């Protein structure tokens, strides 16, 4: 099998580990189906938010009053760099099978992800304390907390998964199963960054513009 034989999206292991590469096609395609169903969940939340943010403000504060664009920009950078760092973790796994470098990249990814979740919680705190913008004030705020909260919950569960994978890498090394799990986690992590593009554009930037 040559280095360029690709069976599935994402990092392919052809060339460096043909056995895992053969096994990857099926499980990764299955994981893509999960990701797409997860995307459907987010799409429904986006649709609800789109309707609520225009027609459901009630007597509460509007998007432009409660959103902090600087914080949203920093959160975007944190998640983007985190996604990028995970890519390098996978490349270290593929080409070097070096536990230390993979763990180091996973640590960078995890810290950036944790900082992202921390900043979002801080955003919520500021919104609630400075603007009294709690979820029960209006349909807009309910939909906002539901959409961004679901995303933050996904990122948090990704962080738990990442911690478990770090332990597995440290304990079992680069077993076939460990590799395939890391590859699926990478897809999950990159997909959450794609969903965040939608959130920063359609929630934060649209909210402040209109």
């Amino acid at each position, binding site marked *: 099998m040559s*280095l360029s034989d690709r069976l599935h999206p994402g990092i392919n292991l052809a060339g460096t580990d043909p056995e895992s590469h053969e096994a990857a096609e099926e499980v990764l395609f299955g994981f893509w189906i999960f990701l797409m169903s997860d995307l459907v969940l987010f799409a429904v939340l986006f649709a609800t938010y789109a309707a609520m943010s225009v027609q459901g403000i009630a007597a509460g504060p509007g998007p432009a009053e409660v959103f902090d*664009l600087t914080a949203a920009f920093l959160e*975007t950078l944190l998640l983007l760099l985190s996604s990028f760092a995970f*890519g390098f973790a996978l490349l270290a796994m593929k080409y070097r099978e070096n536990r230390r470098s993979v763990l180091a990249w996973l640590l960078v990814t995890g810290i950036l992800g944790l900082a992202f979740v921390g900043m979002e919680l801080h955003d919520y705190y500021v919104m609630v304390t400075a603007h009294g913008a709690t979820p029960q004030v209006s349909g807009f705020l309910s939909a906002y907390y539901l959409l961004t909260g679901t995303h933050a919950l996904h990122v948090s569960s990704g962080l738990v998964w990442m911690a478990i994978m770090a332990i597995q890498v440290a304990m079992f090394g680069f077993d076939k199963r460990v590799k395939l799990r890391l590859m699926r986690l990478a897809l999950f992590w990159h997909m959450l960054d794609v969903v965040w593009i939608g959130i920063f*554009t359609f929630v934060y930037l649209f909210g402040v513009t209109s």
Partner: protein
Amino acid sequence: MSNRVPADIVPGAYAEERRERLSYVIGLVLALALTAGAFAVVGLGLLSGGAALAVLGLLAFIQAVVHLRFFLHIDLERSHRDDLMLILFTVLILLIMVSGTVWILYDQHVRMMP
């Protein structure tokens, strides 16, 4: 078992690794530029109203494609069209659901107005 010695790696793997790293770096640079552009449109007030919304939507679409291409490695290569089909079909379903929801709820909203 782990910590493979470099000799074990297929010849050409290092060049391949450099190429794949470069792909991630290109993706990062493009994503940063698009993000900065989107925030600049609003932060610096370059555009307003419908034009701003259209440009923001376009930038988001391009950035999603950049992420899919450089981070998730989806492309038009024949070997994994199945995944592309899956994504395109999901996107079609999403568009129907989202636009339908927004349309119906807007219509209801208009009818509810006194």
